[in-house]
């Protein structure tokens, strides 16, 4: 099986995100970067398949700035076989990222493409769907369970919808899956793995060498989310606290 994992470097979810002075982008000076949390699940899913089946080859691809090479080094340390970095100095929208990924993947004859549910920076939830369309591949988003069928030509997958319903599907290769939290427990790289990964070659491409399209919509401004709440704190006895809550529920919220 030939597997591609699509990875993206994003600001650490612990980071405070602020806008820059002219509110056109975020202020990147104070931010540390990590692999997108959902992509960790995609990467782990690929590694689990490699452990279980013979002749599995994993390629990790990222589209991102120079420093995004870190997520590829980490992926190599964990055991992916090769890595491609499409370097871009500008953030690309989902359609362009998917376009670039699809053009690389088309050359690789891939069976399974694994992505995270969404990247937690632009939260677009678009790349896996668009990628499946460009590749004419089958698709299942928010997958929480993957099993390979006995002929190794299709997958049995399961996802849980917002309502709690479980949907089970059979997907023929090639297929694009976006991974949901809960599908597995991502592993950490080992020191020998990290040392070995340092020597591995990473293929570098330039985003500008791809045919990019311009969107008819543009980002005009960013604003920091600030919810101002006037908090009333109570730390007296239980009876008065309960009374305060009841009072609040009837007077403010009008729920009772």
């Amino acid at each position, binding site marked *: 099986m030939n597997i591609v994992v699509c990875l993206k470097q994003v600001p650490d*979810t*612990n980071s*405070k*995100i602020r*806008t820059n002075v002219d509110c056109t982008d*975020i202020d990147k000076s104070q931010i540390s970067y990590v692999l997108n949390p959902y992509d960790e699940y995609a990467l782990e899913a690929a590694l689990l398949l490699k452990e279980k089946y013979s002749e599995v080859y994993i390629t990790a691809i990222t589209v991102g700035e120079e420093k995004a090479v870190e997520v590829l080094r980490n992926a190599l340390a964990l055991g992916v076989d090769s890595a491609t970095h499409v370097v871009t100095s500008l953030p690309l929208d*989902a*359609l362009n990222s998917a376009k670039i990924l699809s053009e690389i993947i088309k050359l690789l004859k891939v069976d399974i493409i694994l992505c995270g549910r969404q990247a*937690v920076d632009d*939260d*677009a*939830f*678009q*790349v896996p*769907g*668009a990628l499946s*369309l460009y590749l004419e*591949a*089958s*698709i299942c*988003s*928010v997958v929480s369970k993957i099993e390979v069928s006995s002929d190794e030509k299709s997958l049995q997958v399961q996802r*849980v*919808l*917002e*309502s*709690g*319903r*479980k*949907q*089970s*599907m*059979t997907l*023929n290769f090639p*297929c694009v899956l976006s991974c949901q*939290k809960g599908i597995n427990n991502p592993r950490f790289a080992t020191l020998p793995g990290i040392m070995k990964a340092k020597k591995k070659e990473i293929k570098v491409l330039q985003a500008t060498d791809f045919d990019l*399209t311009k*969107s*008819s*919509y543009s*980002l*005009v401004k*960013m604003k920091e*989310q600030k*919810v101002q*709440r006037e*908090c*009333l*704190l*109570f*730390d007296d006895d*239980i*009876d008065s*606290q*309960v009374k305060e*809550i*009841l009072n*609040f529920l009837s007077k403010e*919220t009008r729920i*009772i």
Partner: protein
Amino acid sequence: MAHVLLIVNGLEEKIHSVVLEILTWVNSLDREVQISCFVIGRINDDLTLKLQKYGADHIYHSDDDQLVLANPLSVFKTVLKLVDEIKPKYVFSGASYIEKELLSRLAAKKGKELFNDVTSILMSDDSLEIQRPIYAGKIEAFYKGIDDQIYMSFRNGIVDKVQEKNKEPDLQQIQVVEDLKNVIVNEMSISGKKAVDLTDAEIIVTGGRGLGSPENFSIIEDLAHVLGGTVGATRAVVDLGWRPYTEQIGQTGKVVTPKLYFACALSGAVQHLVGMSSSKYVVAINKDREAPIFSHCDLGIVGDVFKVLPALTEELKKVLNKSGS
């Protein structure tokens, strides 16, 4: 006249609040609009009546199993054919997984822009200003542009839903374009309990690690029950295996917009705050006066959840029974 195609998720045999909000908003626009609804799932009288009351002009539906099973490729091909026929200027839906996946493929196919999880939109002449949260809601992003077709999924809470139009929508059976070559849906389970989808819930009671054990969530469940609310959980307790992932609220879980949010025995990590900060009212109960959640609530109780919650639940039972009788 602008044509809106609204994708309606009818898999739960009821209509999500966001669909009615979109209908309310579109009908309130100062222009002539035609609204066609496409239903994923099976329609029933209640569903059609709601769409009628909120002003749908056409309802496209089918009894075909592929729609009830929500086969991604069959639904995609069927809607794509409809898009090619009616050429909508706007394709809208609620922001659930199935619709977002569908829109991502449609928009890519048409080479048009898609905005997911939109929270606000301004229409002037033909240009649009769109607001949506990015960085898990830490930042609001505003986009502007103009095109002959655009795709958008909306979060709950864009407007208050109002039944203002009562149209006589025509019901049209649609021919499903089956595509079973590459994706077969083997099973669509019935949702376990009649739990309210958290993103649709009016009242949510969330518990954090401070509860100490999964068993102790009974005090959360009791309060949720008496208020007719839904139970939520923090990432910490989901990671510990105390509660299912479907209940997780926050950056790698759900973003919720209830009228009332109870934050119990949780500190208020930034990843949690982004999932619940759009709640209308927030009540926090925590024994640590310094907990960050106290800067993000309307009413803060510095106290022991094991004492406050059972006492509150008992009082609520009395009050609600009295008003009910």
